[in-house]
């Protein structure tokens, strides 16, 4: 999550109102105030709104939301006369480049921090950890245009940021902290992306590290922005967000020529949206005029076109507007979530429980009637508990997760009994008798089914108790069964039985083998049973839908 630091003095200066007003309304634009300190607040913004990842961006939005300055912000761009070329060999490596010249900046500590914070947050939210988009910021006056984005041999060397010696790009990947962090993005390419100036001086090795040569300091007056990536749209939006934030901070922007096109333009895009579609979606009747007014408070340009249409200009920094409904959400936010009349819809429908739940409820009623207490263990377990401790053969049917969180949670349970044995272990210091059951999902292969298991632990627990228990459960479930001597090593030989339904084993019961008791550190006999609920007449496999 992106947590942005908002220094109050700078925020108040840019928003043109006091901190209390701002902080009070900030959550209602879509954020969470994490903490408030004497001189700043830390606020979390959603990943779909990277334009709010800077103080300047937040101030721009809040001026609109608080009705201080509404409508589309206008940004002027004039050509810088600088050109930037792109090497065609980058097509399969990192093909897209966005750029721009930022002039007349006066960087003080707060604006540098805001800019750096914005860059980092964009790397995370838009850049997917720099793989999709990476941003470099350079002191324009230390290099000479035109600039070239090239695919370079990996042996090329330069002095990377924060180092004082020249290193090859391979060395940077191995030795520089940033190189090690991001090596995985480029390491498999034969050639590496590189940005050089007209004198073949290195500006940057995207997406890894800038050169020391173009380091930005408080004395920097003009900035060259390089933004490279694998997605043109994402690259553009990152450039737009940074450039417009810098304009809000007092800078001017000049465009750069790439392939005889001037970029960036910082021009809004246009959409025409339907008034009734918006009203229907929100459940509130709104006019074209009202929608326009609300959208202006969200910093859109908006003009009613007749009764049912509004022509909307979307600011260039809004990465999230991909569908008309995204605009309608902004209408809702400006309208105020607290102002909606919350009501359930009037359509009459009849409630209907699922058969799996109905059966589970019946099973619970039977087992609690027998005096058993319900447990709700995890479905994630491991083969040691599921099989080894139960003295059972490991099953090929157990579903293994690929990157388990721990060696205790490597497979999904194929039956429930071992989990109940664990529960007895956890509770061994508690008063006996302990009678527990659990019912719920099990997974065999990739299919989900339901099962019921029960254990009874006390000095007199024996085969007869297990047999009586499962007989009560099966007869209450209208289940006709026969019993066969079992060979399940979880139970004591001669004290175990299989529940057979139409020739298929659907359950097992008996007295738990002392080897199993020892494995779970249980000191008293345990009578136990488990029943596959697929055997129940009318059992329906959960809709495995399509």
């Amino acid at each position, binding site marked *: 999550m992106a947590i942005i630091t908002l220094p109050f003095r700078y925020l108040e200066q840019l928003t043109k109102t006091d901190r209390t007003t701002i902080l009070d309304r900030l959550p209602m634009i879509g954020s969470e105030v994490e903490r408030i300190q004497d001189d700043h607040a830390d606020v979390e913004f959603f990943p779909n709104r990277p334009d709010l990842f800077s103080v300047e961006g937040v101030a721009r939005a809040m001026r609109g939301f608080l009705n201080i300055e509404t409508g589309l912000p206008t940004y002027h761009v004039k050509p810088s006369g600088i050109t930037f070329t792109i090497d065609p060999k980058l097509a399969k490596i990192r093909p897209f480049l966005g750029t721009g010249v930022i002039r007349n900046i006066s960087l003080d500590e707060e604006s540098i921090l805001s800019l750096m914070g914005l860059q980092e947050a964009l790397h995370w939210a838009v850049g997917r950890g720099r793989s999709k988009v990476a941003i470099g910021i350079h002191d324009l006056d230390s290099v000479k245009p035109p600039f070239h984005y090239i695919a370079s041999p990996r042996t090329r060397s330069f002095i990377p940021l924060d180092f004082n010696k020249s290193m090859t790009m391979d060395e940077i990947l191995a030795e520089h902290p940033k190189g090690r962090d991001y090596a995985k993005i480029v390491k498999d390419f034969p050639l590496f992306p590189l940005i050089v100036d007209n004198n073949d001086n290195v500006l940057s090795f995207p997406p890894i590290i800038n050169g020391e040569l173009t380091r930005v300091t408080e004395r920097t007056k003009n900035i060259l922005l390089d933004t490279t990536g694998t997605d043109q749209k994402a690259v553009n939006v990152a450039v737009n967000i940074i450039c417009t934030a810098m304009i809000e901070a007092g800078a001017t922007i000049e465009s750069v020529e790439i392939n005889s096109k001037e970029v960036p333009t910082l021009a809004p895009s246009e959409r025409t949206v339907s008034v009734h579609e918006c*009203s229907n979606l*929100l459940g509130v009747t709104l006019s074209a005029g009202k929608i326009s007014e609300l959208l202006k408070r969200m910093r859109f340009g908006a003009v009613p076109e007749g009764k049912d249409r509004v022509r909307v200009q979307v600011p260039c920094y809004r990465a999230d507007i991909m569908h008309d409904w995204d605009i309608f959400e902004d209408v809702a936010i400006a309208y105020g979530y607290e102002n909606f009349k919350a009501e359930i819809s009037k359509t009459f429908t009849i*409630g209907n429980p699922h058969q799996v739940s109905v059966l589970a409820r019946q099973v619970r009623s039977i087992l609690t009637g027998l005096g058993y207490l319900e447990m709700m263990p995890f479905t994630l377990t491991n083969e040691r508990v599921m099989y080894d401790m139960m003295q059972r053969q490991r099953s090929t049917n157990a579903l293994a997760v690929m990157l388990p969180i721990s060696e205790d949670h490597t497979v999904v349970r194929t039956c429930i009994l071992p989990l109940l044995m664990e529960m007895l272990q956890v509770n061994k210091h508690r008063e006996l008798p302990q009678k527990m059951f659990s019912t719920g999902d099990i997974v065999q292969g990739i299919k989900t089914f339901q099962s019921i298991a029960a254990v009874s632990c006390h000095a007199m627990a024996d085969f007869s108790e297990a047999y009586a228990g499962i007989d009560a459960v099966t007869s209450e479930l209208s289940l006709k069964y026969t019993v066969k001597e079992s060979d399940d090593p979880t139970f004591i030989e001669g004290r175990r039985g299989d529940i057979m339904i139409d020739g298929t084993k659907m359950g097992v019961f008996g007295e738990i083998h002392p080897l199993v008791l020892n494995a779970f550190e249980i000191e008293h006999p345990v009578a136990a049973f488990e029943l596959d609920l697929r055997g129940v007449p009318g059992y329906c496999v959960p809709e495995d839908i399509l």
Partner: protein
Amino acid sequence: MVELTYNEKRLLNSLAGKKETDAISLASALNSTEAAVVQWAHLAADKGLVSVDRIVNKTYVPTDEGKVYWDKGLPETQIFNNFDTSIEVSKLQNHPLFKIGFGQLRKKGLVQVKDGIIFKVSGVSTQDDEKAFKSPQLSGTREKELVKRGILEEVESVTYRIAITLQGANLVAQGLDFREEVGTLTREQIISGSWKSIPLHKYQVDKLPRVVYIGKTHPYQQLIDEMRQIFLEMGFTEIHGGIVQSAFWNFDALFQPQDHPAREMQDTFYLKECIPLPNGWDRVRDMHEKGGDTSSSGWGGTWNRDKAEQCVLRTHTTSISIQHLALHKQPPVKAFCLNRVYRRETIDPTHTPEFEQLEGIVMDEGVGFRHLLGFLKEFYGRMGFEGIRFRPGYFPYTEPSVEPEVFVDGLGWVEMGGAGIFREEVTAPFNIKYPVLAWGLGVSRLAMLKLGLKDLRLLYRSDIGWIRESPVHRTGKAGSRGST
């Protein structure tokens, strides 16, 4: 009139006229055990009818080792008696008790050794030690020494001396009713009418009862059933589905971009298995790449079919909801699903890799955002939360999105999950024509609030003591048994 049990009366009767009697002789007189007599005496003493004195006696008894010497004497005696006046050390050394016995004899100065020969000191014997061993006196020096050697041990025995008080004697003098009290009525007594003339034992109600543990459902399941009931009452159909889902249904069908961080191995449990894509998958692909036939631009890039076929443990039950919608395109659809979902979280007091989610959808003509807020408000209201508010939220598959919060005393506003209207990019590929209101609410957080738990793990790895003590009818937080 004082209520007395039959046995109390027997006790008083046999004490009458005597000064003081010990419990053992009373037990044999009353044909009972000492423990029972003491119990009756205490009952009578509570009413001021007898006095009970507990007397602790200390005595010495032989230990297991001491018992071995009981017949043949202490080791030193056995060695001492093994020769007349003198013997060569080498001859005596073979005796099994030589080490202990000889050591003791030398310590006590009963023998002397000269040039490998042991001599008895004249006129001595081990008689005093044997006397201390066989009939020990409390606090004797020799006895204490034998205790230290582990041959004798000190034991305490408790005896009770019971005497009747003046009040008790008066009561006996008035005459006692000796008809035996009946505890459990028999069938014969009930049908014959003999119960009318039988004195029924009267129990004391100020004594705590025996604790009985009932069989019951898990407190968390009770809460889950409560929530299910609310949605059934509101006319929702319950849906169920498999734990294993393809990434297609879990993510792609919900317009979650294929490079979204939540789809990474770090956050989702992936499986080696694959599930083939359903018919119409290409419409989902077109939506991701270009926005299909809607006003959407799509995510751009190339949608990868292999990624969609990968299997995951469902990260939400929204995968079940969208499949239900794909099969039920005619409005109205009101459905809910309350089941386990899986996220790759390390276990701590507030995170578990599996937890319950309450998922609901409403697809109908004429429903909008206002109604979504209405359903959320209704649900939380029925769950007992009076304060509810809505903040803008963000979820990849809903637009607009909202985060409901409820007010909890002592905690303030608590976030409860996410909700929104399914994006058209989600519904259009399945030809769903009307808005779909949707929510996914964290049930375990609600359970922690309702059950007063600080540690989520207790729901799944439950202390049976906690379940036994959690009342079925909750009044706020889980309380403890009995009247307080």
